[in-house]
């Protein structure tokens, strides 16, 4: 880690130049889409393009709400995301707890089975899972959208690590006091790993909000789509009104970008856990 100092100013400036260039490359498509979305005048594909918005207005955003069921999309996405997060936290924490804190026959095997799902390519799953959903009658339901995403090996591993760090004394003390395992899990250990639960929750929320292939397979009525699938529907149906599509794009991505900006540290922690 280098500390900032004025002796190295030329080098620091050079570093900033590279940093800025790369940041521009990452952020520019968003900026450009925003410019297109808030402008009502001017040729979108004019040469030279104007990188600042002309005649700013919110008309295109209002138009999005008029032409597609945007509120319904938001509601659907929110429902799918919130239920995925809640159920995933519960199920993965329940599974991680015994792996970390209980001794039982077959624990190594169970752990191996869970790890194996990381190597099994999930790409095959979509096709067969769709058949499964048809057979058990969950096509066109949000249960069908959510169910296959509830348990992932990565989340179980992250939470197992979290449980590993809880001091054994606390658990022993509770046992001596006569608390049963469920009570220890729910009232003592779970509150202690809250930061890790937050990490898993955030990572899951982003994944669930962004998921579009599986929901668009399971759900057939466009008004039941989540936002990620709905926005492609907007492009498919109103392909000519570029400004409206741009506005819809901004409306889709804004919540997740805001969420990311406020919860950055959880992403970094998730990575920490993934490497270990």
């Amino acid at each position, binding site marked *: 880690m280098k500390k900032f100092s004025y002796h190295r100013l030329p080098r620091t400036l050079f570093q900033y130049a590279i*940093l800025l260039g790369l940041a521009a490359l990452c952020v520019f498509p968003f900026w450009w889409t925003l410019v297109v979305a808030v402008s009502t005048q001017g040729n979108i594909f004019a040469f030279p393009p104007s990188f600042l918005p002309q005649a700013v207005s919110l008309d295109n955003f209002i138009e999005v709400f008029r032409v597609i069921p945007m509120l319904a999309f938001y509601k659907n996405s929110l429902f799918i995301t919130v239920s995925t997060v809640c159920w995933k936290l519960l199920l993965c924490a329940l599974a991680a707890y*015994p792996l970390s804190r209980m001794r039982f026959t077959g624990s190594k095997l169970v752990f191996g089975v869970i790890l194996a*799902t990381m*190597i099994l390519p999930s790409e095959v799953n979509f096709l067969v899972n769709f058949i499964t959903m048809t057979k058990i009658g969950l096509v066109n339901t949000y249960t069908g959208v959510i169910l296959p995403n509830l348990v992932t090996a990565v989340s179980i591993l992250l939470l197992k690590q979290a449980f590993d760090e809880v001091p054994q004394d606390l658990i022993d003390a509770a046992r001596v006091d006569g608390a049963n395992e469920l009570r220890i899990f729910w009232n003592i250990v779970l509150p202690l790993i809250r930061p890790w639960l937050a990490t898993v929750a955030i990572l899951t929320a982003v994944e669930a909000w962004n998921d579009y292939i599986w929901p668009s397979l399971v759900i057939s009525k466009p008004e039941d789509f989540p936002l990620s699938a709905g926005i492609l529907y907007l492009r498919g149906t109103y392909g000519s009104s570029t400004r409206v599509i741009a506005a819809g794009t901004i409306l889709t991505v804004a919540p997740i970008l805001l969420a990311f900006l406020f919860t950055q540290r959880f*992403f970094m922690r998730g990575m920490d856990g993934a490497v270990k």
Partner: protein
Amino acid sequence: MNQVINFGRRHGLLAYLFLAPALLLLVLFSFWPVLFGAYLTMTDFSLVRPTHWVGLDNYRYIFNNDMFLTGLKNSVLFLLIVPCIQLGAISLAVLVNTQLPGIKFFRAAYYVPVVTTVSVVGIMWGFMFHELGTLNYILLQLHLINTPLGWLSDDAIALFAIMFVSLWRGLGWYMVMYLAALQSIPAEMQEAAILDGANLWQRFWKITVPMLFPTIMVCTIMSVLAALKAYQEVDVLTQGGPMNSTFTALYYAYEQGLKHLKLPRGLAASFVVSLGCIGIALLCLRYLKPRHR
């Protein structure tokens, strides 16, 4: 001690009760698809009529199919971007592993593409790649090209445009992985090397890279698998066009399986991709072991 053993015995059933829901879902949605899928590739399964055993016909079909072979070739081409993205991500991580003011802003900026919905990415880069779009304008202004390029409409370059978007989306993710690893390298090692007179280049290759090796391995495996499975970017940018030039093996699998409802054929194609993934993952695990431990 006695008491602990007592607890241990009682835990058996209880542990499985805790694990049951998760295991059930994993079996149903992770293992069953592989087993049942393997069986289905040997049949002419469809949702509407009885199933017959057809042996390896589906595999024979796809290996005689130009579209699948193009897809396979493109998937392998995708592997070419893997070394680029790893090198880029390591360099980027080294670049942002400083305490310059505002560095957190830059780290966040590089991560923004990672959290963006892929459908939005498709729409945004559609704007960028348009023949009269921004990218062509900038390149024309810099005199790097003479006429506007059809990034997504020219079959010679569309695949590379898609690869670029993959790279754009993935770079920040790998950067954060490497950043986390870099920050766990003890500072004393670098300081000791500086005292011994090692220059920046030597320190990078002799200390940083070996210390990063476990992360490099994990990231390489992940990016190889991601490259073989390239699907989403193709779906939102070109849908396999122009003239089938951007078909990837997995895109072919989904197109057969989901759009044309030839499930066994699509499954056979995805099984070929999967076997490739497993093979490469095992090879990486075998040969990319850290040498210093």
